[in-house]
């Protein structure tokens, strides 16, 4: 394994190519870990038994996401690292906030799509975000260019296969019937897919420039929280009304914020996938979250208990197809020609915004352009302590979940997630120091 030393150590083309291949494997591993953690994010929210409005549920999850996205960078790299990153490329703060706004609007649209057409139709429609992402990746960031036709076919075919699989699985596991506003729901779901696919433009922009994913997410979450807060306030009617709704739901808040925190872990891996394998491969790999969500629903919460044989066949068949699609994409890592195209796109980006070329080149290889201290300060520990205090306070007032849970499967799935977290997190740390 090549340690994240100084960038000049990789001056030779062959060392640089080996490093590029290593980062491809790391990105694919990150995408698969992202699927596991993003899929599990809904599990804690299922434990919230209160009858809350879907927008309030989203808002509470975003509060948990906000706490996670500020405390994780403070803990892993320190806020000094984030500040140094922003000084190198300050324009990316605007892109990050814009990305956060896109996420919040898309997430709210999915709530209305599910209401109008049901999960079975809505889920595959917004999963088209992978196709949108491939389009932007090819058009703006030279992805899939100069690679052989087999790799291009594998990525596009794998993404389409996963869309078909998502349709089959979602139809089989549907729990909600359409409510009679089909066109409205379909448009809402397609719009969510468009926004979630377009949200990867800011991601990729930041990562080919050189910003660390943890730094980018610190500002992304400001756009996310501001937009979601505005939408929740508009839904509640006023700030006092929103506060009353939150106070009334105090017993469920821990589970909702915990869901947001689990989401953050998955999202961090998703960012590293977008950084190291690009958005055309990163999005479909992260979309395996549907498979993990299904495992939690079926095995832990007993959602398909008593389902007919046809339903089971559809679920198993769709899941196998999804694994195949993800496998095909995972085996089609970018070759040397395509990686050279990424470097051209990165150089263009650096020239456009006047970013130091050494910084961009070093970070693309998961390295630091100069030595960094990495020491934590009292600010970092204060951020982590504040986030911990919020969770402990909510835990003190949390209601015991009344939803029946299979403890054996819950333990096994949690263990699988923790193994992925430890393995992929360790690899990211050793190879890149989360650069």
């Amino acid at each position, binding site marked *: 394994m090549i340690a994240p030393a100084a960038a000049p150590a990789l001056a030779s083309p062959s060392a640089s190519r080996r490093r590029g291949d290593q980062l491809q494997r790391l990105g694919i591993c990150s995408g698969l870990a992202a699927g596991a953690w993003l899929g599990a994010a809904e599990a804690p929210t299922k434990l919230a038994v209160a009858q809350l409005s879907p927008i309030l549920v989203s808002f509470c999850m975003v509060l948990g996401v906000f706490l996670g996205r500020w405390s994780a960078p403070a803990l892993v790299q320190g806020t000094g690292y984030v500040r140094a990153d922003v000084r190198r490329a*300050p*324009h990316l703060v*605007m*892109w990050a906030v*814009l*990305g956060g*706004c*896109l996420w919040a*609007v*898309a997430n*709210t*649209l999915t709530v*209305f*799509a599910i209401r*109008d057409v049901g999960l079975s139709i809505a889920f595959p429609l917004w999963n088209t975000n992978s196709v949108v992402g491939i389009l*932007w990746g090819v058009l*703006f960031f030279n992805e899939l260019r100069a690679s052989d036709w087999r790799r291009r076919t594998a990525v596009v075919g794998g993404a389409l296969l996963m869309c078909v699989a998502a349709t089959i699985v979602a139809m089989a596991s549907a729990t909600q019937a359409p409510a009679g506003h089909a066109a*409205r*729901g379909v*448009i*809402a779901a397609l*719009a*969510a897919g*468009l*926004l979630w696919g*377009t*949200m990867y*433009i*800011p991601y990729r*922009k930041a990562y080919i420039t050189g910003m660390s994913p943890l730094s980018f997410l610190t500002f992304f979450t400001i756009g996310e929280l501001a937009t979601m807060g505005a*939408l929740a306030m508009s839904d509640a009617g006023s700030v006092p009304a929103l506060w009353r709704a939150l106070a009334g739901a105090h017993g469920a808040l821990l589970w909702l914020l915990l869901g947001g925190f689990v989401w953050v872990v998955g999202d961090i891996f998703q960012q590293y996938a977008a950084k190291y394998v690009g958005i055309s491969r990163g999005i479909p790999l992260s979309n395996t979250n549907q498979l993990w969500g299904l495992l939690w629903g079926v095995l832990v919460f007993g959602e398909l208990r008593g389902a007919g044989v046809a339903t089971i066949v559809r679920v198993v068949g769709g899941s196998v197809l999804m694994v195949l699609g993800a496998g095909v994409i995972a085996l089609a890592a970018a070759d040397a020609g395509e990686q050279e195209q990424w470097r051209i796109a990165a150089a263009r980006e650096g020239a*456009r*915004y*006047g970013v130091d070329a050494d910084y961009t080149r070093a970070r693309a290889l998961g390295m630091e352009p100069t030595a960094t201290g990495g020491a934590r300060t009292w600010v970092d520990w204060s951020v982590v302590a504040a986030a911990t205090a919020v969770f402990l306070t909510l835990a003190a007032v949390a209601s015991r979940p009344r939803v029946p849970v299979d403890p054996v499967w819950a333990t096994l799935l949690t263990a699988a997630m923790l193994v992925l977290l430890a393995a992929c997190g360790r690899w990211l740390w050793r190879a890149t120091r989360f650069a």
Partner: protein
Amino acid sequence: MGLTAPDATVRRRLAAVIRDPQFWVPVAALAAGLLVLRWVR
């Protein structure tokens, strides 16, 4: 009052964002998303 060097840098980078055609794609998507959201609520 004249611009200081950091001010000029910030202005230059802001201008680069506005001139970047890629910037307007997510902005347009966000505007479209907000319009759809207003319609479906």
